[in-house]
């Protein structure tokens, strides 16, 4: 009978990915499983999660009123396929709705606005005083893609995703290097989720609810195809990096945090097989931790 780590390694090999996995029960006797859970991995848009959690702490400290309105002008807006990034005109929106978009749609414009207002420095200081030793948010999405574009021949950031998807070469970028890009570990992500799930503020509930309403369910969710199981998740994608972290909530059971970080051998942009493998890795990690409440 193979261990969970062996099963995870074998499934990852079959999917053509390197995987880092951690799952941890958020209640009951402590229990967790993992595959290289403490390795530092570049985090792509997962940084939006600690950013949202930091925001919620700021709100609960009275430093932000989440009803406050924010104006996002149509010019100078962070590009992206979803949310305010995808809109053409000026937008006026509340703090909490901005966080909703940032988390449930991975809205780049929302994320850039929040990161500018909260600040990389204060975010780093907040991360330092949590339990997460391997997590560093070094920049936002806009700067990440600009760096990739610079390192792959120059030109606008919009060219960068296509360059990373070149199947005839192995494109390198410092955004694939955990020492230089924003990075985290699977175990750190589970710790952050545990902290978020224990927090009792209204702002924390905004973040959790946004995660429960993430607009796609093809990654971790594909491992739990049950209408009554809630997946509160956040994906992260950049080139070969395909990640998701989530809290899986079976009815009447203790919630389980699971983080699946992957780097695929294939460079293509669309990789449904990897998305499915992430679901299966999550399922393999979670199943031994289930516990009735």
């Amino acid at each position, binding site marked *: 009978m193979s261990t969970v780590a062996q099963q995870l390694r074998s499934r990852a*090999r*079959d*999917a*053509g*990915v*390197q995987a880092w996995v951690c799952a941890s029960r958020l209640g009951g006797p402590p229990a967790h499983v993992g595959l290289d859970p403490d390795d530092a991995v570049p985090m792509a848009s997962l940084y939006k999660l600690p950013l949202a959690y930091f925001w919620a702490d700021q709100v609960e400290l009275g430093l932000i009123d989440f009803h406050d309105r924010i104006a996002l002008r149509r010019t100078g807006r962070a590009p992206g396929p979803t949310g305010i990034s995808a809109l053409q005109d000026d937008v006026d929106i509340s703090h909490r709705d901005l966080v909703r978009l940032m988390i449930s749609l991975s809205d780049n414009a929302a994320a850039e606005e929040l990161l500018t207002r909260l600040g990389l420095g204060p975010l780093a200081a907040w991360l330092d005083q949590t339990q997460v030793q391997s997590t560093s948010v070094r920049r936002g999405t806009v700067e990440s893609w600009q760096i990739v574009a610079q390192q792959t021949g120059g030109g606008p950031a919009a060219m960068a995703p296509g360059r990373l998807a070149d*199947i*005839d*070469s*192995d494109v390198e970028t410092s955004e694939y290097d955990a020492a230089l890009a924003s990075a985290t570990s699977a175990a750190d992500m589970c710790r952050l989720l545990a902290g978020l799930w224990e927090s009792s503020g209204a702002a924390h509930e905004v973040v959790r609810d946004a995660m429960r309403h993430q607009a796609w369910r093809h990654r971790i969710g594909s491992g739990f195809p049950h209408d009554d199981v809630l997946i509160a998740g956040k994906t992260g994608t950049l080139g070969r990096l395909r990640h998701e972290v989530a809290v899986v909530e079976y009815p009447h059971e203790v919630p389980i945090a699971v983080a699946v970080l992957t*780097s*695929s*051998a*294939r*460079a*293509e942009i669309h990789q449904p*097989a990897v998305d499915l493998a992430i679901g299966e890795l999550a399922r393999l990690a979670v199943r031994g931790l289930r516990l009735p409440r």
Partner: protein
Amino acid sequence: MDLLRHLSYFAAVAEHRHFGDAAASLGITQPPLSQGIQRLERQWGVRLFERNARKVQITDVGVALLAGTHEVLRQADDLGDLASIWTSPRRVRLGLAGDLDGVVVKLVRALVAEGLHVDPTIGGTVDLIERLKDGELDAVVVCHPTVVDGVWAGPVTVMQTCLIGSAPGTGTIALSTVGLPFVVAPRRDHPSVHDQFIDALRRHGHDGSVIEAASALERDAIVAAGGGVRLTLDPTIGRPIREQPLPIRVRTVLPVESNRRPEVDYDKVLGAIDEGLPR
């Protein structure tokens, strides 16, 4: 006593069940063989063989000690092999992916032409990289894409292919007109390459069906029997495929710098491999 020598006597008699044959296999005469077995039995205080008039029979104790004996002899051999690596510095333990039929010979010759002694191993891409990381191989030439964590991986070389086993003729053939499955290496050897290949087949009008066969010879036989088609890197024996949708992409993978052997001229190896690959 020379334990290894006596163990090899024990193993030989156990294998041949006949002192004369065992002695012949060791290249010695029977008396020293018998004496050696007796000395071992005295040393261990056990009886390894029952000798009666007609044949030699291994005892229960002998059976119990035989596995351990083989293990010790095998490890002694491995040690010898390891030692010989250090005495022949130009020896390169080279791994080559099994789906590179047509290229293997050229590559090995290119290395030999550089004065390198090559110990070739054929295997699946993923396994070869594991063995490289374990220190069993010095360099591997494998198919891209594959996971390359913990190793140094060189640039990707893209090689165009031709088709064998389709309708006779020499002109360019369109993939959408190929009704037979493609005969390929097992998916397990290189899951990413396999899946990408099937996606490419479908993208260009083939239904994506494949037959997996473990050896190049087996694949050749299936194609010869009309059971499928296959790719070749040799343009003289296959038909070009319209739009060249199915290239083979390879890269040379080496251990990370801190794990490399000082005796191996890795630059020379890389240069020779580059020379040996068709473009």
